[in-house]
């Protein structure tokens, strides 16, 4: 039994044409038992920057709260919104500080750069190694399943509606093949000036 699969969970972010999708399941479990069905793993840092976290639930809450604190201080000091790339560095540094006693989480970042308006996605491992791919990022207990779905379904430059369908199908079918994730899903589509949040009808097991 691994610490990363103790609570279960899955998170995915995808890049589209001037938009991004970030989605997670809603299960909160303690090993085999499900104790929560509304545990969203996506946290808005500001209007255009969303953070998704999977792994140990306790660390999910701690890291998201610490990062919110960092971002608020940043915005007070700098008097501007943080860019996603800088946020990735903040997160990476925060995680590497705990290199020999890490937070047991795998984060996923999705945001739109406030200046250039470009979509941005990234993920890290539990000690902060960053990865900025051009297509999609996946984390969680069903990461392998998510990789398979995304690799087949994703294509570049999708419009928000198509991106929503792609992201939802990838997440839903992957968590249906994992006992540790599921019990519903939430998807956020982030465009410039607009965020659409939808809850998906899913298998509740």
């Amino acid at each position, binding site marked *: 039994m691994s610490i990363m699969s103790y609570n279960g969970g899955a998170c995915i972010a995808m890049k589209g044409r001037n938009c991004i999708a970030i989605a997670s399941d809603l299960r909160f479990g303690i090993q085999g038992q499900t104790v929560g069905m509304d545990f969203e793993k996506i946290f808005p840092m500001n209007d255009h920057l969303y953070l998704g976290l999977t792994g140990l639930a306790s660390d999910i809450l701690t890291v998201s709260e610490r990062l919110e604190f960092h971002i608020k201080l940043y915005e007070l000091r700098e008097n501007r919104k943080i860019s996603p790339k800088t946020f990735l560095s903040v997160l990476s540094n925060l995680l590497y500080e705990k290199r020999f006693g890490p937070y047991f989480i795998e984060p996923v970042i999705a945001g739109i750069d406030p200046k250039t308006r470009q979509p941005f996605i990234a993920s890290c491992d539990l000690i902060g190694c960053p990865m900025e791919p051009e297509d999609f990022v996946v984390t969680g207990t069903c990461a392998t399943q998510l990789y398979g779905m995304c690799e*087949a379904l994703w294509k570049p430059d999708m419009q928000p509606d198509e991106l929503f369908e792609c992201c*939802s199908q990838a997440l839903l*079918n992957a968590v249906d093949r994992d006992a540790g994730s599921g019990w519903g899903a939430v998807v956020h589509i982030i465009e410039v000036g607009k965020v659409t949040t939808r809850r998906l009808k899913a298998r509740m097991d």
Partner: protein
Amino acid sequence: MSKFSNDIVDHSRQHRFSPYAMNGGNILAVAGENFAVVAADTRLSEGFLIHTRDHPKTIQLTPTTMVAMAGFEGDILTLKKNALTRIEMYAFEHSKFPSTPAVASMLSKMLYYRRFFPYYVYNIVAGLDENGKGCVYSYDPVGSYERESYRAAGASNELLQPLLDNQIGGKNLRNVPALTVERAKQICIDCFISAAERDITTGDAVFVYVITKAGVNYDKFPLRRD
């Protein structure tokens, strides 16, 4: 994984000979209304080494039945040889080939015979049943089997199985197009292209076999060679 893998070195345990190796690769089968499609890649690997790029993982046992095998190549070779011999014996005794459900049952018993020193092989039997309908049977290494509509097995079955659930099973979709031979073949190829991206043991080429009552046809498609 450490029980079967020879390439991960564990420094803190006494060295022991392992009778198994992982030779990687993927197999996949889909059953249609009156056809079955089997796909298997051709890469034989061990850890980061590629032994050969041109080694298909399937065998045709009867005019209407194919078996695809993934796992440890040593056991695959033996199992193929033994299965073929049993089929030939059946054909000699009964003057006809066994039906696909009969072959499926036989394979299960062959595998369970070795319950306490298993064949490290993941099998999929595909073909046409007595009514001419497509059928797919999937196995675990000791012979537990079940008839299904589609199954992926091998090194990246976790990558491929949800995609099959979605595209063939129509899960989480309101309506899914009818399953024709062309659509089944295209889905198989797309699956292998995706698997080749994310799994190091899958690649080089994929053979796609279509089993209909007219016989077995196959095509070979190239995959990433990295």
